[in-house]
């Protein structure tokens, strides 16, 4: 039963990932990515990581992809255009994918000759408590450093996005829209 489910969600994930590349419209690609995220969550659940599965749906499918869709809607992005560059990408891209997949497979097989079989029992081992102890005790420093890194990235994005001289700050508050009388 677990094996059947694994294959069902694995095939859905791979099919959605291929569809993501094949679709010409960005919103369809974004939706395919959501399907990939959701089926990955199902795979996590099969491996017993219930908390990770829920977080995968809440954070990736529910928050990050909403922002992707939001940006696509805001930019009103149209269909992908074919340029001379895209032909070059096609010529080089397919062989590159094969080479990359080969390298990854080779590395996995040589460096890990006796892979541990994945536990598909559906028994839940990755409880919130276990994950919290890993993050907030064993790996506290890397976790905090990562959060500082993300904070720096956010600040950089804000600085880059605001045009010089008009950065909204305490000095130049944004004006509320003017009220119309009558």
């Amino acid at each position, binding site marked *: 039963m677990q094996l059947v489910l694994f294959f069902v969600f694995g095939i859905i994930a791979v099919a959605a990932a291929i569809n993501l590349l094949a679709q010409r419209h960005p919103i369809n690609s974004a939706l395919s990515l959501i399907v990939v995220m959701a089926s990955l969550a199902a795979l996590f659940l099969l491996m017993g990581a219930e908390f990770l599965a829920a977080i995968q749906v809440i954070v990736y499918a*529910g928050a990050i992809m909403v922002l992707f869709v*939001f940006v696509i809607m805001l930019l009103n992005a149209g269909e992908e255009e074919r340029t001379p560059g895209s032909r070059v990408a096609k010529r080089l891209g397919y062989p590159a994918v094969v080479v990359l997949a080969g390298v990854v497979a080779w590395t996995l097989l040589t460096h890990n000759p006796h892979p541990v079989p994945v536990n598909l029992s559906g028994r839940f081992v990755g409880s919130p408590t276990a994950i919290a102890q890993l993050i907030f005790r064993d790996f506290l420093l890397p976790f905090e450093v990562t959060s500082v890194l993300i904070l720096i990235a956010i600040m950089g994005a804000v600085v880059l996005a605001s045009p010089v001289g008009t950065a909204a700050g305490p000095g130049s508050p944004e004006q509320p829209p003017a009220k119309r009388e009558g």
Partner: protein
Amino acid sequence: MTVTTFVVVSVIKIVIAIMVLLAAVAYSTWLERKLVGHIQNRWGPKRVGPFGLLQPLADGLKFILKEDLVPPHVYKPLYLAAPVLSLSLALTSIALVPIGNWVAVGGVYTPLEITDVNIGLLILLGITSLSVYGVALAGWSSNSKYSLLGGLRASAQMVSYEIALGLSLVGVLIMSGSLNLREIVDMQGGHLVGWIPRWNIFRGQIFAFFIYLAAAFAETNRVPFDLPEAESELVAGYHTEYSSMKFAMFFMAEYANMITVASIATLLFLGGWHGPVFGPWWLVDILPIFWFGLKVFAFIFLYIWVRGTLPRFRYDQLMAFGWKFLFPLAMANVLVTSLIVALQK
């Protein structure tokens, strides 16, 4: 329990839950029209049946019989998928809401919910966080400026308020130490002092409760945060281009989401199905469900009351309120609660 019994019991529970939910949705619309009518010194529906009680049936019939129009300028696959997505997610979330204790019916011992999950609350939040797609995609695929603006507003608003909503629940989770809704409710049985029940709202989570309430209004796109469908500026927002049953599906989703949000508030802050239980055995079995229903009803009533009372926020006010007021307050609540819990240990 054998597999066959499990499947049969589950199917029966699913059918009952969906029927009850849809009936509750239908009568929430009646209640809303009736109450807002009385608030505005009108009668509300009163022609169809006694007190207009058959109005939801008439509405449903009208929606089904209306011409199902698909405007020529829409992006059809997503235009058709959006209402289905909204409604199915809204109906799915009820599967995780426990409405009472375990019961024994005909020798089968079963919890009064469709499924009892370890991380029920997280899954509920996950489903809620996905429901923004229905609205956003409806707005985008309609290919009309009003719909697009409505969809954009909805996605920005729901993502922003989800943070305050999630953080407001953290205090309760710290206190109960579980993500299982049933365990959270079980923690709230009994009394604090005298007759005051041991509900989380009386155990210091009162700020969290009001943060949750405000964020929940925004999550379900209700007045005073119904910017995505502000009639006075956006015609009808994201569902401007929808008609007949597809339009109705958005409304059913909205009311089902209201009921889910009210159920979560009841379970986490108001002690779930706990309440005075007395009388013969059949009353003892029924009273918890009655208390649960009464608390959810009180929330729906509050929703409608607020709708009839408050004006709509301006969009920048909405964002400022969410990010500059609710979010820091929720954060402070998490800090104070965790400090107190840590000191008590």
